[in-house]
């Protein structure tokens, strides 16, 4: 008997989809559009995050020690620097090391004849916990006694932080707005079916069908539409991502721009799309049938 009932829900749900082909198509399209926009913005946000993470591991501040300090005094600054908030660790580099490293990067040592390590300074490479606070840390480090000056690439971190914030904000707002729009279209599609079947619904109530039984075929209709919408948009998002990723890598020419491969995010994206599609279907259909179930 249970199986028979389940079969009934599915048959009724599917036949409603076909008897309102155009509206079904429209509601699938709107779900696809919404999910594509949601998905694309989310993927951009994830990638910007990823780029910022990479930069965080690479980006560092260079704190140059005052010339008047001896090497021993300079080494003594390590604890003070590491005590500055947001500093992960500080690595001391003597002027000789720095000079050797510098010379090594050039093929022709004759450029540097007559010069020695005394032209450079002892320095600390300072690694940060959070790149977003780089500017604050930069200011604090400048105030450490014995540090002459600090070098930082504030513009880059600033730019990326701003992009990340904007993208996060925009995608959250879009997701909310698009979710509501999808719900509206979905519930109206199903309202058409409930309106067309209002006599049937009245008879069902009259002969004693339970609310659950009356509701299920419409919920199934919504769930199927939602599921089709999520699968179609997942496939399209996949294709879109491949194209955009290729364009970005070849077009931009920044070596630090890396794109996360789709397979790494495909499962969460598929789950999220499925959840949104099914959610819109279930909630939209429940809203559509709600008024018929009173009394």
């Amino acid at each position, binding site marked *: *008997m249970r199986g028979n009932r389940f079969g*009934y829900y599915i048959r009724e749900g599917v036949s409603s989809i076909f008897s309102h082909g155009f509206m079904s198509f429209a509601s699938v399209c709107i779900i696809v559009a919404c999910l594509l926009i949601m998905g694309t913005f989310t993927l951009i946000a994830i990638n910007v995050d990823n780029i910022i993470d990479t930069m965080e591991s690479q980006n560092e501040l260079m704190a140059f020690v005052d010339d008047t300090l001896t090497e021993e005094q300079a080494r003594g600054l390590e604890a003070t620097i590491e005590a500055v908030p947001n500093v992960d660790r500080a690595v001391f580099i003597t002027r000789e090391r720095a000079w050797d490293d510098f010379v090594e990067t050039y093929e022709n040592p004759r450029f540097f004849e007559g010069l020695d390590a005394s032209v450079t300074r002892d320095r600390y490479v300072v690694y940060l916990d959070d790149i977003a606070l780089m500017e604050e840390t930069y200011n604090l480090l400048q105030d450490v006694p014995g540090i002459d000056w600090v070098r930082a690439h504030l513009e880059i971190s600033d730019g990326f932080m701003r992009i990340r914030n904007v993208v996060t904000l925009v995608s959250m707002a879009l997701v909310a707005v698009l979710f509501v729009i999808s719900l509206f279209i979905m519930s109206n599609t199903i309202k058409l079916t409930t309106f067309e079947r209002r*006599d049937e619904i009245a*008879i069902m*109530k009259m*002969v004693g*069908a339970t*609310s659950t039984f*009356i509701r299920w075929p419409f919920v199934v209709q919504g769930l199927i539409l939602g599921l089709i919408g999520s699968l179609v948009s997942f496939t399209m998002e996949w294709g879109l991502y491949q194209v955009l990723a290729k364009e970005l890598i070849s077009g931009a020419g920044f070596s630090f721009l890396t794109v996360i491969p789709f397979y790494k995010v495909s499962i969460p994206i598929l789950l999220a799309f499925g959840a949104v599609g099914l959610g819109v279907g279930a909630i939209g259909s429940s809203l559509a049938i709600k008024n018929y179930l009173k009394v």
Partner: protein
Amino acid sequence: MVQFTDVFKSYENGTKALRGISFTINDGEFVFLVGPSGSGKTTIIKLLTGEIAPTDGTVMVNDYNMGTMKFSKMPYMRRTLGVVFQDYRLIEDKTVYENVAFAMRVIGASGKEIRRRVPYVLELVGLDTRTRRKPHELSGGEQQRVAIARALVNNPRLIIADEPTGNLDPARSLEIMMLLQKINELGTTVLVVTHEKELVESFSKRVIAIDAGRIISDGMDGYYSYER
């Protein structure tokens, strides 16, 4: 069993449709409910089906208290009733057979039960040769028979009919009443709302007459008690 005790019903616009109605219908009875237009007959039917709730007093239907029962129990109460309307209320794109089977399917009956029960009730109402027709291919009397078959198919304790012959000629009306009487003889309680004096008189049954929301007579002496 139906039991009304001091039932009042006012609609939201202030209309006092029922003003203190009390009566009992025992299992197995056949009862006519008569009264002029606007006297409150349909209001009584709607109280019986749970479509509206009483403003005051108690309405008991087949052991359910209509004023206090939980909303979720309503479907199970309705399964003890079969309701027939003046306008038949059939589903136009389903056949006779499907219209009747639908009433069973939506309360979760199995295919096997449906295949056994539907032909039986269709034969009972005399439509066993019309099972594949759609409602618009039937006469009014035949459509009302389908509605009666649908009301009967889930084996209710009580059949309620609100002006079932309102759209039919006298001969067809008589046939429908005889059918309801036959159903009553098979053990189902029947309550029929009607305007038709001759029809009521040709059956010697209990008649409850109401006017302006009150009972003015209740007895076996037919329509005359109402006219006096």
